[in-house]
């Protein structure tokens, strides 16, 4: 049995920042199903928020207010306050580690405007900010390679739980197919989001709900899963991200008539309204037949910015659009559409990243989570752009500190290695043995299609019910598939099947929570209940598993400074 003081699952920004903290005193393992530098944090483009005030005076209070208003007042404000206060220090530390940032004429970290932020507070490295931070953290991990062991291309299957105590994880080596148990004093999940359940998504193939579902399967609820962010600028059909920084730099959104339609939806902020509002505006235009040539896309126009500015500030994504669409944004507008981008919900944690089981804050001892897979909740019903990289780094560091505090001087728990291993081996065996005729590919496509059309930007009771029924049918068909590759060596097929199983489970959870929330707030919009309803729904959803199906309980929202008010831009 492998043994480490701490196992961190996921090697994106949160996981690596956590490792750097925990390895100061502990023996740390970081497990990733890819390589650290391949984590999806690296795809973040536009920036990371902090009230440095490098281009205009700014304050943490303004950052906090913008975040809470952007989140449609579902954010836990005590957590938001700690988070925005930590932001400047966190950015300076990244700079000290060597992270490469674009600079102001005085040599300070450059900052640009972003949707929903009242001040230019997005610190950036051209249009590859996530990449810059990811590599800076990876460099620090390589520097600390004596105290951090990285398990590249290992898959996490399940948590080892004893009552209210987490004692490790069951994993397998993708390269060899060997199943192993890693015993640990504490486990940290930094497993990212689950945008792959939707047809059009900016997410990597790896963003498949493995972490959240592993938590859910051992009885941990999921908080606010109905809140999924649709990013307004996914490249048409592909869904891959074209940074909000384009609008931050001044790009326009145009419908088929050439109108800057945001005037109708958010006259004061125009293209720089929060993402939920812009994505809905786009969808409304398309639904009204004003998409470009009547299709499901609208135009993002950067032409007036000029080639020089585009090359200085947005060079990578210009190339991206040339490679993927054959369109140069210097000379032509880009067709874009809303794309599933970020999960505001996730594994419920307290402000120190310790996983909790209920609204009373009962802990699952030894189990922590940070980053997109966790729900603190600092983003409430809708996350502002550039707040996610900040979330990952702030709470990654905090999880590291918490886990250090927790595991220091503690003994390892009891783990029955054979029994735990057998659980996962059975899962493998079950899939290998299936001799059905269903196509996993077909099932995955149908899931993505129904989630997009019935549980996407606009939702209603009828569509959600159909969606859930369809998904349950797909879960049944999932049991009747057949695997081609029965080998152990780098069998990517078997892992894709396991990921699909997780995604189907997650999709049902999202749709069920969306059906239950009969109001519209942030990224969750019900056409049959188009208003926010604070009297009935100003709470966090907590979705539990039970023998009779999913059960939804509630958890109060922490409100300190800002009382819920009407949200207009």
């Amino acid at each position, binding site marked *: 049995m492998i043994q480490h003081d701490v196992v961190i699952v996921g090697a994106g920004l949160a996981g690596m920042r956590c490792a750097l903290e925990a390895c100061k005193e502990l023996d740390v393992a970081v497990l990733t199903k890819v*390589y650290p530098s391949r984590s999806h944090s*690296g795809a973040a483009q536009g920036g990371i928020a902090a009230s440095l005030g490098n281009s205009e005076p700014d304050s943490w209070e303004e950052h906090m207010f913008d975040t809470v208003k952007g989140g449609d007042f579902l954010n836990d404000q005590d957590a938001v306050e700690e988070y925005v206060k930590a932001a400047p220090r966190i950015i300076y530390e990244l700079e000290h580690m060597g992270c490469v940032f674009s600079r102001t004429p005085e040599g300070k970290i450059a900052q640009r405007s972003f949707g929903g932020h009242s001040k230019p507070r997005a610190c950036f490295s051209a249009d590859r900010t996530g990449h810059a931070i990811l590599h800076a953290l990876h460099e620090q991990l*390589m520097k600390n390679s004596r105290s951090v062991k990285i398990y590249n291309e290992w898959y996490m299957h399940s948590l080892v739980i004893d009552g209210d105590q987490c004692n490790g994880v069951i994993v397998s080596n993708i390269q060899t197919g060997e199943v192993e148990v890693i015993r640990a004093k504490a486990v940290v999940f930094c497993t990212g989001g689950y945008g792959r359940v939707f047809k059009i998504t900016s997410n990597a*193939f790896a963003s498949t709900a493995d972490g959240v579902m592993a938590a859910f399967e051992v009885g941990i609820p999921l908080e606010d899963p109905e809140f999924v962010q649709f990013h307004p600028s996914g490249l048409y059909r592909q869904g891959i991200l074209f940074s909000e920084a384009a609008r931050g730099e001044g790009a326009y959104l145009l419908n088929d008539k050439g109108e800057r339609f945001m005037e109708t939806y958010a006259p004061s902020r125009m293209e720089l309204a929060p993402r939920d509002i812009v994505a809905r505006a786009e969808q409304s235009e398309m639904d009204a037949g004003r998409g470009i040539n009547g299709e499901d896309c609208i135009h993002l126009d950067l032409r007036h910015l000029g080639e020089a500015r585009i090359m200085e500030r947005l060079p990578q994504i210009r190339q991206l659009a040339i490679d993927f669409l054959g369109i140069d944004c210097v000379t032509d507008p880009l067709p874009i559409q809303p794309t599933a981008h970020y999960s505001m919900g996730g594994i419920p944690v307290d402000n120190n990243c310790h996983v909790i089981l209920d609204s009373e804050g009962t802990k699952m001892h030894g189990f922590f989570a940070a980053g997109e897979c966790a729900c603190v909740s600092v983003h409430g019903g809708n996350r502002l752009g550039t707040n996610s990289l900040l979330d990952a780094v702030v709470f990654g560091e905090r999880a590291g500190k918490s886990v250090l505090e927790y595991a220091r001087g503690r003994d390892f728990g009891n783990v029955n290695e054979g029994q735990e291993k057998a659980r996962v081996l059975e899962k493998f065996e079950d899939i290998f043995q299936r001799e059905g005729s269903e196509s996993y590919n077909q099932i995955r496509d149908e899931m993505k299609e129904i989630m997009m059309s019935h549980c996407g930007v606009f939702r209603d009771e009828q569509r959600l019910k159909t969606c859930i029924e369809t998904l349950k049918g797909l879960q049944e068909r999932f049991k009747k598939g057949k695997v081609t*590759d029965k080998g152990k060596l780098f069998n990517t097929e078997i892992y894709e099947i396991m990921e699909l199983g997780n995604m189907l489970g997650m999709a049902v959870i999202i749709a069920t929570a969306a059906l239950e929330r009969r109001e519209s707030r942030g990224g969750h919009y019900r056409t049959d209940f188009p208003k926010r309803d604070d009297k009935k729904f100003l709470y966090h959803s907590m979705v539990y598993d039970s023998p009779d199906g999913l059960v939804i309980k509630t958890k109060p929202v922490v409100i300190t400074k800002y009382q819920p008010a009407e949200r207009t831009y």
Partner: protein
Amino acid sequence: MATFRIKRFNPEKQPEPYFEEFQLDIPDGATLLDCMNQIKWTLDGSLSYRMSCRSAICGSCAVKSNGHALLACQRQAEHLVDNNDTITLEPLGNMKPVKDLVVDFTPFWDKVNKIKPYLEPKEEPPVKERRQSQEEFLVIDDASTCIMCGACYSDCNTLEVDDNFLGPAALAKAQRFVGDSRDSKTLQRVQDLSEPGGIWDCTHCAECVERCPKPARPFDRIKEIMTVALEEGVHNNNGARHALSFTNSVKRSGNLNENRIPVESMGIFNIPGLLSLIPVGLRMLLKGKVPPILHHSIEEVRDVKRIFKELDQ
């Protein structure tokens, strides 16, 4: 209908790799990765390759297509089809195949680790950020776009004959620190990078620049490190001596003194090194390849000297 000729390898089943052909209609606008997924998901689930972000930033999906390394997610499939309507896919080169298009990246990462890929700052950091001008940022901007996909490593001609070479990606990563105004170890770094296996073992073929899917362009970065090494006075190695001797020869006479360069590159006091040249010299003598003993300047040598003078200014 296009043919995808894919090199298959599964040592669990048979020890030797072989090619297998798949027929696929390339959908409009499909990337090479989209096609590979279509093959995997509808024709043969056992096909293995790496992928993740599909937006050319994670660096997972580099493979060889028609003999050259590229990122599968970044390229439109129809642009890759050859005259026979075929796309030939193989695993990256210079690394050991694991299964199908998956290779073992261990040596790649070991070499990245070797260049001490982290900032060694000058002093205790200030409370806020260190200042760095936009110009200083631009020196490391290109190198920092590297996504570690291994395309350059795969097609590097030096690596094909010399395992010890650090390779283009690790050296580009090294430039990101050599050129960083915040780093304190510039001299140490260029000394280490001038050792065998480092910058001077690059053959200047620039294949890595052709293969790089980002603006990192490793060979350009290698040249930048060479410049810094010479500026820092790190001359005590064959590569630097060769570069200096080469320059001096052209400066003096307008062409290369081929008798002098090998001797100067080896170092005039490097007796064992010079002795090692004798067999080569003898073989050249036997084949009638020895350059003339008396070296002549070209007629326009004054113009050459003027160019050097202007460059010096």
